[in-house]
């Protein structure tokens, strides 16, 4: 689904990514671990071109999306992203946050004459509201639909942010340390939700410091250090039997 070939990114003299190669198959759940500053988040930000790579290719569904001729916004419609800081729009209610992007995109298709999502903007909004409420129902937050994000706990906000991503029906979701900004007692509710999503056929790339979670949910674990992928394998291979001394050292510190 997505192939990263020799991806490099530098900020001035700081070389954050020094040639990352990574290939993720359809439906695969990949967890990226590694010390701070190893380039995990930068890699993730490059995958939907929120950060423009300095060099290398990212082939997503057959197209090199680093090519400026590719309409990156169309690519982003099928790539969801969940941020460390949730990034909900604070002047919009929970429901408005969730339906904002899909309503816009579907209205755009309607204008092009594609009526898959509804025959009028009103109908599209109604459909999206219904779907958003279904999703909120699933995570037990349907009573918060008209609340503003500032009135919710961190865990609730992050779950809403995940639902906002799901509302786009993405094929690939990028998680950037989704629990790092949360109070400890809220980590579980967010991880539980991600676990639930992992059961579906959505490809997921998760940057995380939750090793127990990575072991459980990942099909494959990537260990990054100093801007390269140092080691990759099944969770068992990486956590129980790491080959590289750097991986061993890192795991001995965090496990």
């Amino acid at each position, binding site marked *: 689904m997505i192939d990263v070939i020799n991806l490099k990114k530098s900020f001035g003299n700081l070389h954050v990514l020094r040639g990352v190669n990574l290939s993720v198959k359809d439906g695969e759940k990949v967890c990226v671990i590694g010390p701070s500053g190893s380039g995990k988040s930068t890699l993730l*930000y490059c995958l*939907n071109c*929120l950060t423009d790579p300095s060099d290398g290719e990212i082939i997503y569904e057959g197209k090199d999306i680093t090519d400026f001729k590719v309409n990156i*916004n*169309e*690519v*982003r*419609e099928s*790539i*969801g*992203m969940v*941020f460390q*800081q949730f*990034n*909900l*729009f*604070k*002047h*919009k209610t929970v429901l408005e946050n969730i339906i*904002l*992007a899909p309503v*816009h*995109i579907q209205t755009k298709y309607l204008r092009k004459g594609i009526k898959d999502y509804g025959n009028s903007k009103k109908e599209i909004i109604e459909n999206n509201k219904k779907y958003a409420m279904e999703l909120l129902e699933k995570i037990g937050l349907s009573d918060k639909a008209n609340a*503003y994000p*500032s*009135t919710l706990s961190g865990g609730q906000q992050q779950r809403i*942010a995940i639902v*906002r991503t799901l509302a*786009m029906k993405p094929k690939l979701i*990028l998680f950037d340390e989704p629990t790092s900004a949360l109070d400890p007692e809220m980590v579980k509710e967010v991880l539980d939700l991600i676990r639930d999503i992992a059961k579906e056929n959505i490809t997921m790339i998760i940057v995380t410091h939750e090793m127990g979670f990575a072991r459980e949910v990942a099909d494959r674990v990537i260990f990054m250090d100093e801007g390269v992928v140092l080691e990759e394998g099944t969770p068992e291979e990486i956590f129980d039997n790491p080959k590289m001394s750097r991986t061993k050292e890192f795991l001995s510190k965090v496990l």
Partner: protein
Amino acid sequence: MRVSFSEIFKMILETLGMTFISCGLAYILGLPTGILLNVTSKKGIMPCKWLNTILSLIINILRSIPCLIIVVLLMQTVRDIFGRATGEWYAIIIPLFVTSFGFVSRMVEQSLAEVDNGKIEAIESLGATKFQIITKVLLPESRASLISGLAVTLVSILGYTSFAYNIGAGGLIAGIWKFYSKNTGDYLSEPFFWIMIIVVILIVQGIQELGLLISKKIDKRRIL
């Protein structure tokens, strides 16, 4: 010399007229310019160094010319537009607009800069175009700050309306000065002098409080 209440009322209308109309004009031009300044800055969503430098330069030059000088510089322009450059309340509108335009641009730029970069990344990741980033995130997320900026701008333009005196354009502040110059001996003991000053204070208070109130009302960032 005496002033009647109806004269004071006329001065109030003139002052409000100059202030709001020139402020409106300043925002019509200043809002887009402020947005442009923000998005073309180094950390903006479409950095463009030359455009940002040129805009900054123009605004800095405009802002460093004192209002009175701008009034003088624009005399001919005002005459071309209105037929005369002095004596009527609307003669001061163009100079006030030119003076406050740079101020407004900077205010808008600052307000937009307060928007958390994460929100911009979030909407980008949802596939928003640059224009949508501006209309769906930058402007809505900074609206509380934009409104309080508007109140500050109005009050500062109100202060600038004192230069209306120099071209006989009237208004309340010029009226106070006129009243003083006609009653130099005992102006402090004239109740009308104080009434006019109190009216100015009330107008400023009103604008400021209303601005704060609206700003708070639409600010959803705080826990209500």
